[in-house]
């Protein structure tokens, strides 16, 4: 009788220990998703922060491009007004962010085409620095999106797999949504090492 009791309590103890370890893994995995999501929002914010400066610089040289500049300002405020979420559990949340940010990307690329007509602007130090910053920000956006997707996919794979899935919903861990991967993220770099 005593042996049986000991056996049962050992099994229960092991189950509890297993539950704790699964829970902790889920927590750290979710933390990882959250921090990479925060990074995504950071880099988008960084881009939004560059725009007022960019707009005023362009305005100084290209007064006639009112509508293009207004489009950029409008797209920026649309992108900034997307409510921030700590963890995107609904694909609609990602889609909303994506749509607003794409609107901004398009407005910016139209602006960059217009800018080609103003050699003085293109030659100005301030504008060149802004262009470098903008290019760097676009690159950071691509990097952080990719990292978020990796983190989100790993987290989802962990919580949806058996037997963790039995515990995940009980502990309140739900799958997160992710970005549609850009084609560039899929391509494998090829470097020819033969000379």
């Amino acid at each position, binding site marked *: 009788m005593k042996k049986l009791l000991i056996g049962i309590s050992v099994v229960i103890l092991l189950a509890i220990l297993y539950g704790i370890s699964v829970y902790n893994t889920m927590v750290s995995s979710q933390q990882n998703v959250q921090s990479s999501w925060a990074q995504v929002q950071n880099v988008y914010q960084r881009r939004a922060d560059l725009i007022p400066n960019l707009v005023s610089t362009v305005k100084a040289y290209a007064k006639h491009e009112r509508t293009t500049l207004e489009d950029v300002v409008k797209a920026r405020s649309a992108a900034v007004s997307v409510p921030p979420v700590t963890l995107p559990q609904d694909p609609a949340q990602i889609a909303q962010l994506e749509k607003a940010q794409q609107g901004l990307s398009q407005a910016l690329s139209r602006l960059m085409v217009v800018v080609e007509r103003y050699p003085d602007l293109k030659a100005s130090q301030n504008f060149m620095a802004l262009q470098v910053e903008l290019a760097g920000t676009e690159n950071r956006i691509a990097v952080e999106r990719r990292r978020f997707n990796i983190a989100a996919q790993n987290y989802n794979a962990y919580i949806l797999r058996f037997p963790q899935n039995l515990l995940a919903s009980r502990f309140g861990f739900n799958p997160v949504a992710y970005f549609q991967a850009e084609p560039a993220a899929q*391509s*494998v*770099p090829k470097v020819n090492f033969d000379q």
Partner: protein
Amino acid sequence: MIMIIKQTKYMKFFFSIFLIGLFCAKAFAIVIPSKPDNYINDYAHILSSSTVAALNSTLKQYEQKTSNQIVVATFPGKLDIPIEDFSTHLENQWKIGQKNKDNGVILVIFPDDHQLRIEVGYGLEGAIPDALANTIIQQEITPAFKAGDYNKGVTAGVTAIMQAAKGEYKSETEAFSAQDALVIFFLIIAVLLVWFLRKIQGGKFPNGGSGRWGGGSGSSSGSSDSFGGGGGSSGGGGASGRW
């Protein structure tokens, strides 16, 4: 409590690095060489051996002093993806910079393609913003490259990067971190606790309690001699250029 928070932060970090590493190892293992042993990795053979030796020793000394890791990599052949993407993959694979400081910089050069990039780790983005990286490329490196003098261009670029990154971090050998203080604090508490327990139990406290000390993952990455460190990451900061 502070220890616990710190630990999850570390775990989070480890985990993300691990995942990224795993992902990259799977997809890009064939094309990107594994982490090198030296600072100057001239796969394209454009630098003279004296330049390579000089820069290797300069950068080693520099890392010992500042803990910043600056690595140069030249690759032969043509690139069929943007150099920014390639640099990100390279950085993910090599993990230049100290863990938790992310203070690494890679100068990537594709001579056949006339493309180059300075990839800056998260931790040095403040010291080397994109505009500065661009200025280093435009003013220090590409003029010499245009003239065909790779040795001069790379040396000038590395010198400028070293200048810019100087003072951002210190080598951690003499630093007494908050974590060390915490460990010592807990040790003192533990000693006092044992003494106290012994006292109230009348000296009958058994030797070797079964309590185990977790936490305190104080892995000080003392990259003293060889090309150590690693674990840094970058978020795509830096600048690219052509010549």
